[in-house]
């Protein structure tokens, strides 16, 4: 992954979020407060502006800037979570060009940070349910010799699968947990948006 690919990834997330804004809002309205789409749109459009305006010296700089922008523009639960995740990933990628293994380590660090901050386990019906299997799949693909594009595709597939699997769960973290059993039968919006983030990586990697 190089700097341009990192930027393309952020642009790709922004486009996906813009496209899915309404749907993310509806998913959040069903179990939360309906702002998830709007939150991410605000955050990633600012992030795109920020990473376009900067002259980064590393892949990590792009991701760190993305994270910092998310933290200072999004608010809510997803702002600190996604923001810190991108910052944690960025910290691991202090080079102009990084290998799939590095990206895997960065994604692991991001997952670790989300878990630390939010305290959610897999099965709590949060973004962790998409991110954790995605990171696993990414690492496994790289382990078995896959390139970035291949690993990212595996991660995106796993994230989408993980997001779908949140439907029957009862939420134990975040706003949806207030609903108790009524949270069952709905997709977790953050898990769905996490799948968008990883699909955007897969697409950027396939083109780059």
């Amino acid at each position, binding site marked *: 992954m190089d700097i341009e690919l990192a930027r393309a990834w952020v642009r790709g997330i922004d486009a996906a979020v813009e496209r899915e804004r309404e749907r993310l809002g509806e998913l959040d*309205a069903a179990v939360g*407060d309906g702002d998830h789409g*709007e939150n991410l749109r605000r955050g990633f459009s600012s992030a795109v502006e920020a990473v376009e305006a900067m002259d980064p010296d590393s892949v990590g700089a792009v991701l760190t800037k993305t994270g910092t922008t998310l933290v200072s523009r999004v*608010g*809510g639960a997803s702002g*600190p979570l996604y923001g810190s995740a991108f910052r944690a990933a960025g910290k691991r990628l202090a080079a102009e060009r990084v290998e799939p293994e590095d990206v895997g380590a960065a994604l692991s660090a991001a997952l670790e940070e989300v878990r630390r901050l939010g305290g959610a386990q897999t099965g709590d019906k949060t973004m962790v349910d998409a991110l954790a299997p995605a990171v696993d799949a990414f690492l496994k693909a790289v382990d078995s010799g896959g390139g970035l594009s291949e690993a990212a595709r595996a991660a995106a597939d796993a994230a989408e699968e993980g997001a779908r699997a949140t439907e029957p769960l009862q939420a134990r973290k975040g706003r949806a947990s207030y609903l108790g059993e009524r949270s069952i039968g709905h997709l977790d919006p953050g898990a769905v948006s996490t799948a968008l983030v990883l699909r955007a990586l897969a697409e950027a990697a396939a083109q780059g």
Partner: protein
Amino acid sequence: MKKFLNTADTYLTDALAGFAAAHPELSVNLESKVVTRARGPVAGKVGLVSGGGSGHEPLHTGFVGEGMLDAACPGEIFTSPVPDQATEAVRAVDSGEGTVLVVKNYTGDVMNFEMAAELLGEEGLQVETVLVNDDVAVEDSTFTAGRRGTGATLLVEKIAGASAARGDALSEVAEVGRRVNAASRSFAVALTACTTPSAGRPGFELPEDEIEVGVGIHGEPGRRREKLRSAGEIVSDMVDAILDDRPLESGAEAIVVVNGMGGTPLSELYLVYGEVAALLEERGVSIVRSAVGDYVTSLDMAGCSITVCEAQEDFLPLWDAPVNTPGLRWGV
């Protein structure tokens, strides 16, 4: 969606601009979205800062002023503020005595204010956080995000505000705020869903004869849906939920808040208050102070919350102390 607005995107800044125009005694930064008392930090006084998603007006912006908050940072509609807002607010009001942050217990609010507190700590500023979590509709367990902060926020901000105003130290202001929170329990019911400007339609569909019971303040559905019943029956269940969670003995004294969610006429709130008063009287609890009105709202939601706070000795003089804010005013 039927609202007085120009565009959904400008709703919040337009409303804040109007708030700024109506309250020249406050200083409103429309860029960073921070509201402070115009005259800056008060020497020798502990600062009191709160914030949270917008859409709950008058909370928090309307509680900035003498005897209550020194600053508020309103986030986007129903979205907690970002750390930058909180740090700017605290820096603007800190007089060297430290600042108490009043934070409602939502994952987003907690994380954003924590990040702010960390940054401020690194800058050498003293910050204490009071977490408000009074809503008994949510079980406070490891299987949830914990009880939400709702109507008790009014009590915490007023009483901690008075404590700070009379010159109490940082730890004392935080401590009384925490005790008010610990003594308070709330429960809310919605008759209608609310509509956020960006969604453009109600957050959930509710038939003409049904209500959402155990709702929060962000337009989420509640714990369960019920048939609409008489006010007496609804309120009785609400009071039971509150007192089951934190029983009050006969002879106890309480401060009661009946709070409208934004779309409820005042006459209905008084009607609800009448039911609460009768139920507490039956249990031998005397209401020593009360507030009936819109304090912690959810945009245009029709509904109300009830908060019962066991009045400890030092709460009353602090509640009665002068306050001069857009949303609460007496004694000055």
